[in-house]
C-alpha cells in the first residue's frame, strides 16, 4: 500500500469522533503524515477547541452525542471561512446530510468504512 508524501508544511487539524479507537488511530496516522492533530471524542470538546484553537482542517464525525458534526461544521465555517471541512459518517443515507451542509460551501463527506487514501486525498485537496 502506498500513500502520498508527507505534507511539507504542517497544517493544524481538529479531529472529532466519539469512537475512541478511530480517534486514536487517525491521530497517530495523520500525525505521521505531517498534520498537527487535536483529537477529541465528543461534540462539546470539539466546540471548545473550535472556540479557542486555530485550524486549517476540521475532520468531524457526524453522529456524536452532545453536538453533532453538522453543527460543528457550521461553527467551524463561522470561525474559519477558509478552512477545509471533511465529515465522516457511518450513516447509509447521506442525502439529508448533504442538504444540511449545502449552505456551508465545499464540504467533503466520507462514508465509513473509508480508505485512508481517500481520507488523505480529502484532507489535502
Amino acid at each position: 500500500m502506498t500513500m502520498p508524501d508527507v505534507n511539507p508544511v504542517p497544517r493544524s487539524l481538529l479531529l472529532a469522533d466519539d469512537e475512541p479507537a478511530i480517534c486514536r488511530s487517525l491521530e497517530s496516522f495523520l500525525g505521521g503524515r505531517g498534520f498537527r492533530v487535536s483529537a477529541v471524542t465528543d461534540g462539546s470538546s470539539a466546540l471548545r477547541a473550535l472556540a479557542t484553537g486555530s485550524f486549517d482542517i476540521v475532520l468531524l464525525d457526524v453522529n456524536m452525542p452532545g453536538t453533532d458534526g453538522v453543527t460543528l461544521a457550521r461553527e467551524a465555517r463561522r470561525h474559519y471561512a477558509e478552512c477545509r471541512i471533511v465529515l465522516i459518517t457511518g450513516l447509509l443515507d447521506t442525502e439529508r446530510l448533504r442538504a444540511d451542509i449545502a449552505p456551508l460551501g465545499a464540504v467533503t463527506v466520507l462514508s465509513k468504512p473509508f480508505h485512508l487514501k481517500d481520507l488523505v486525498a480529502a484532507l489535502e485537496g
Partner: protein
Amino acid sequence: MSRVGETRERGMAVLMTVDRAEVDRGNPPAGNDPASHLRFLGDHIPGGMIYQLLMEPGGGRRFLYVSAGVSRLHGHAAEDVLGDVRLLYEDIHPGDRERLAAAEVEAARTMTPFACEARVRGADGCYRWSYLTSEPMARPDGAILWNGLELDITERKRAEGALRESERQLNEAQRLAGLGSWELDLAHDRLTWSDEIYRFFEIDRERFGASYEAFLDAIHPEDRAAVNEAYRTSLERMIPYAMTHRLLMKDGRIKFVEERCETTFDASGRPLVSRGTVQDITERKTASDALAEALAFRNQVIQSARDGIIVYDRDLRYRVWNPAMERISEVCAHEVLGRRPEEVFPFLGPVGVLQRLHCCLAGETPDLIEFPVPLPSGRFSWATDASSPLWDHEGRVIGVIGIVRETTAQHEAEEALVRSERLAAVGKLASGVAHEFNNILAIVRIETQLLAMDPALEGKTTAEERLATIEEQTERGSRVASGIMAIARPTPPQLARERVADLVDRVLAVQRTALAGENIEVRVEVPGDLEVLADGGRIQQVLLNLVLNARDAMRPQGRGVVSMAAVRDENAREVRLRIADSGVGMSRDILDRLFTPFFSTKGAFGGPFGSRGNGLGLAVSYTILQEHGGRIAVESEPGHGAAFTLIFPCPERVLGDATMRGES
C-alpha cells in the same frame, strides 16, 4: 126479502127505511131488487161502514142510516146509533174532535166533501185509526144531509208508521255509517238519493233534486272518466262494481268515497234499475294514508341508511335487513328474514355477537364490538355492531335493533399505519445497526490498512495493539448482533422463583469492588423473603446494565450513591425493584428516547476502557422485563440523579393466571 120504501132522494136514502131486523148478514139477496143489493153492499163494506146523517137547521142531528159495520167499528148496535147520535161522536178521540168539527164546518160552508183521518174508539174500547169522508147535500128545508163513509185504516197507519220508522232508522244508520244510497230507474230515467248523498255532495235537498249532472259535477274532475267507465263496464258486462274516487267540493275540499253499484236487468239483458251505495271514507282514507305515509317514510329511512339496520324479534329471528346490510354482508334480505343468526351466520357465535343479542333481550345495552365478517365471495370485511334492546311502549323488550357499520377501510388504514410504523421502526433499527457496524468496520479497516503500511508510517502503535483493537471490534460487532436478536426475536424466559435479594447480590458480587474504587457507595434494602418469577440470568443482565449506567452517570462527579430497594405492592400485586443513582440525571428529551435501540448518551462520558454504549442496553432490558410480564419505569431530572424501577407481577398472579389457562 126486505121491504124497500120509496124515496126521492139518491139511492142511498132509500136505505133509510130498511128494517134492520130484516138484514140478511150471511147471504147476498137472491132477486133483482136493487135496494136489497145496496143494503147488502152497505153492510159488507170491508173494514168500514156507510151512513147518512141529517143536520137540521136548528143544529140537531140524527142518523138516518148506518150500515151494519157500525157494530164492527164501534161496538154499537145500529139501532142504538140511530136513536142516539152522540154515541158515535163520543167515540172520536178528544184530540181529534176539534179538527174533525172544523173540517165539517168548512165542508158545510162550501158544500164540498171533507175527508180526514182521526182516532176512533173501537168495539174493544181501544182507539184505532179511521178514514172519515162525507159529502154534504142541502135540502130545501135548510137541513143538510151528509152521506158518509168510515173506513178502518189502523193497519195502514201502522204500516205507514213502521215504514216511516224503518226509513228513519235507515237514514240514521246511513248517517252514522257515512253511507248513502241511490237508485236509478233506467226505464223511467228517475234518480233518487238518500239524505246522506245530499249531505256528501253538499247539495240542498229542498232546492235541487237528484240528478246525474249534479252527481258528475261533484266527482273530482280527474276521477270522472274512471267513474263513468266503471259504470259503463258494469252495465256492459252485467256485473256489479266497487271503486273509490274523490269528490271535489265547491270550496276545494276533497272527500274520498267508496262507491258500490249493482244493476238489475230484464230477460233480454236490458238494464232496469241501478242501485248503489256511496260511503264517505275520507276519515278512514286520511288515517290509512297517514299510516301508509308513516310506513313508507319508515321504510325510506331504513332503505336509505348507509349503515346496516337489523331488527330481530323476541325469538331472535331477522325481521329487518336493509340494503346496506345486504351490501355489507353480501347476503340478500330474503335469505335471512325469518331465520335466526346462528343459522345464517355461524361465525357470529365465536366473535361474541350472539351473546350480545341475548344480553339485549335481557334489556342490557352492550358495548360496540368490532369483528371480521367472512363474505360469501371469500373475502373478509370488518364491521362494528351496536345492538340495543327494542322496547315497546309499555317498556317490554320486543326484540333487538342492530346498527352495523362496515369498518374495513378504517381497519385496513389502521393496519397499514401499524405496518408502516413497524416498517419505520425496522428502518430505524436497520439504520442504527448499519451505523454501528460501519463504525466497527471503519476501525477494522483503518487498523488493517495501517498494519499493511510501511511500519515507519504507522506511528508508535505496535502491530499487536492494532490486532487487539480489531479483535475488540469483532467482539463488539458480535454483541450488537445478539442485542438485535434479543429485541427482534425474543425467546421465552425460563421462569423460576428467585429471591430478589439473591439476584441483587449476584450482580453486586462482581461490581462492588469496582464501584468502591470509583467512590460509589452501594445501599441495598431488599426484604429477604421477597420473590419474583424470573429468568435469573436475564434479570441479572438487566441489573448489571442499570448499575453500570448508574456508575457512568456519576463519573463526572467522581463519587455517588447507588441504592437498590425492593417492595411488594399488594394492591397492584406487583414487586418493584428500584435502582436509583445520584448521577447527572437526564432531560425530558433523553427520557423520551431512552428505550429506543441505538440511542445512547454514553459517548459523552466514555469509560476508561474505551467502552461506549451501543444504545442497546436499555432497549434489551425493556424487552426482558416485558417477557416477564413486567415493565421498566424511569424518573429523572437533570442534576438530580435517575431512578429505574423494574416492575414484576407477583408470582401468585403469574401462577394463578397460568392455572386459569389450564397450564401447569
